[in-house]
């Protein structure tokens, strides 16, 4: 793979990650958000594969397949199952701040991401380092979704966005982590999502909805 093509592919994957993250903040329908999350998982998997091919690292290729399978296929499936029983209630009720405001916040967070990752960018000017702010931005968008949405599944999506962001930074700066660690982290995320899915369906069975704003008081 030539250098310019490598740079372009890394840039393209970063753009896909960023675009999916912005669209997740934008969309209200839960199914749409889950599809976007799956697309982002594919983007991350391809990014890891590109890094792996460029460095000729076989282990990184295995990690790429793992990321693709987990974030592109398994986790979206689990999330879809968490929403399937939700009869008709597939739209996020108005988030804590409206969509226009959160989109403007996204722009501000992007600037913040660039400011924060300046020390990292000082390390060099290779394509992966140049793309680090995208990872930072996706992490920050994840925080935004996590803190402004009311629906349990939306918050779960925010959590996974956060995880994708952290994963992106790790792959871009360190060229990935050892396979064992990656396996551990992936299993961890999978377990968290499975547990939260069970919890969500329990909440829904118990209270008839998954709006977490209703769960502010303790009652006997």
């Amino acid at each position, binding site marked *: 793979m030539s250098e*310019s093509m490598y*740079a*372009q592919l890394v*840039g*393209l994957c*970063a*753009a896909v990650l*960023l*675009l999916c993250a*912005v669209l997740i903040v*934008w969309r209200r329908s839960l199914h749409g958000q889950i599809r976007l999350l799956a697309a982002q998982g594919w983007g991350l998997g391809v990014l890891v594969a590109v890094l792996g091919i460029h460095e000729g690292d076989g282990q990184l290729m295995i990690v790429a397949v793992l990321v693709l399978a987990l974030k592109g296929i398994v986790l979206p499936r689990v999330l879809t199952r968490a929403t399937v029983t939700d009869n008709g209630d597939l739209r996020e009720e108005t988030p804590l701040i*409206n*969509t*226009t405001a959160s*989109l*403007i916040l*996204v*722009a501000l967070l*992007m*600037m913040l991401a*660039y400011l924060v990752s300046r020390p990292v*960018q000082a390390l060099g*000017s290779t394509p992966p*380092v*140049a*793309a680090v*702010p*995208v990872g930072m931005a996706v992490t920050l968008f994840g925080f935004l979704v996590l803190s402004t949405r009311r629906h349990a599944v939306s918050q779960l999506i925010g959590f996974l966005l956060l995880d994708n962001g952290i994963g992106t930074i790790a792959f871009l700066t360190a060229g990935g982590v050892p396979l064992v660690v990656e396996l551990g982290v992936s299993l961890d995320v999978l377990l968290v999502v499975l547990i939260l899915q069970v919890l969500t369906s329990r909440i829904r069975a118990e209270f008839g909805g998954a709006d977490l704003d209703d769960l502010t008081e303790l009652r006997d």
Partner: protein
Amino acid sequence: MSGSEAGVNLPALTVALSQVVVLVVLSPLVIGLMRTVRARLEGRVGGGLGQPFRDVRKLLAKEPIRAKGTSWLSVAGPLVLMASSLVVCALMPLLGTVTFDRMPDDLFVVVSVLLLGTVAVALVGLDAGTAFGGMGSSRHMTIAALVEPTVLLAVYALSIPVGSSVLSRIVAARLEDPTSVFSPVSLLALLALAIAVVAETGRLPVDNPATHLELTMVHEAMVLESSGRDLAWLELGSWLRLGALLGLLATLLAPWGVVTEVSAPGLLLAALALSVKLTVAATLLATVEVFVAKVRLFRVPELLAGSFVLAFLAVTASYLVAPG
């Protein structure tokens, strides 16, 4: 650029004139195509490709009837819109990247000429003093105020790698290096630009061009009081805008066919390429329109804020590819 000393830049003039002619012919066909595609997908027969032509010919033959108390604005507005649309058609690098030295197809020139037409239509809507006209104009200006920054920012993002805000330089740079079309900057900016173009030309989901339901119309509300020749100019002017903007989008996405040196066969080929691009773009747009509903007016700012953010991200991403 050699002819500038002589006062007339002949190649640029040729390109500009041929663009105007080609777009005047193609734009009504594009509208006809979009209506036909839409009709066929909805199970209707539709009026056919030539129907907009026939409409305009019929309207041009009729004398305009103006409401009592309207000022010269009702007379001048449609002509200003038509003139500004023709200037936009002449300036856009749709057939060739040869441009005038004195008045290049600079981003800011194009956007200001577009805005001139927008304001003219809004004034026509206000002039007759009807409730619908005023409502339409007010909505139109709100949307325009939200769209213009996005257009500026999106094209600015595209201009950073080239180092010039002249549209033909951007297209020429893309012709030289086709891979740059698929760079993150270009993808984000084009997506933002596409949403802005849809809003600017009053297509679904921002405005329904086929509606006459008073609560939802934007463009139709403004031209409600116009008739005859006035209406013909207003319609043709807005079709030309759609054709030019759609053409710009298609040219930025697929710059092939645009000539850099003026020659008769080259221009012919470019015109053919442009009609193919416009056909594809119009069919796509019409197909998408079948599947979306008009968004509530209060959700329009949300859509445009989204496209603004995409354009903004495109600007930031342009520093991502070329650090430093």
